[in-house]
């Protein structure tokens, strides 16, 4: 088991969680009620893929970020 602190980027709210080996990013986001978010270790690291095991990529006690999806690009239906 590893303990993690998930920081919701928009609010700064911190959610303390404990994960087991094999826990995926989707597992974490679903259980935190953040299905439209993405997890990352920070701005210098890529997002975790939904099915990627987070357990292997983080250290016990580490802080990771949950942020909403945002993409640079030409076409936007929400401008």
């Amino acid at each position, binding site marked *: 088991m590893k303990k993690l602190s998930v920081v919701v980027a928009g609010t700064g709210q911190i959610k303390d969680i404990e994960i087991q080996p094999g826990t995926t990013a989707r597992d974490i986001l679903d259980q935190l009620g953040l299905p439209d978010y993405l997890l990352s270790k920070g701005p210098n690291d890529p997002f975790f893929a939904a099915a990627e095991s987070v357990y292997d990529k983080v250290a016990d006690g580490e802080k990771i970020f949950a942020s*909403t999806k945002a993409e640079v690009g030409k076409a*936007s239906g929400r401008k």
Partner: protein
Amino acid sequence: MKVRVLSTKDAPSLLSRIIGQVLGGPAPIMAIKRSQIPYWHERGWRQEGRTYRGTYKTAYGSFIGRIEQVRPGNFRLYIFDPPRDVRKHRHWTCFQSQGNGRYRIHMSRMPDDVSSGILAIERLLTEAFEGR
């Protein structure tokens, strides 16, 4: 006279220090409260009305930015004097020059909040520097 001795006292003996520590017990644990602040604030951005000003920070450098909230969930993102490496990035065409070194960054998917927008640009800048 440069030095004046006001008083003197004996240093505590090793024995009295040990006894003092045993009788006193361990120092009380102090709980440090974590700060729960939005990412934009943590990264030093400032808010003036619906406009946020700060720098996109990467391991390779910081770049002046501005984000205007048009309405909830809709933002205009800007970067000033973007680094040369971004010009080689596949998304360079999404940077629209507005003169005086200011570029508007077009988003194909808007972030829901300012913090997620900053994270997205910081990640893109890092990708550009790392040639990804």
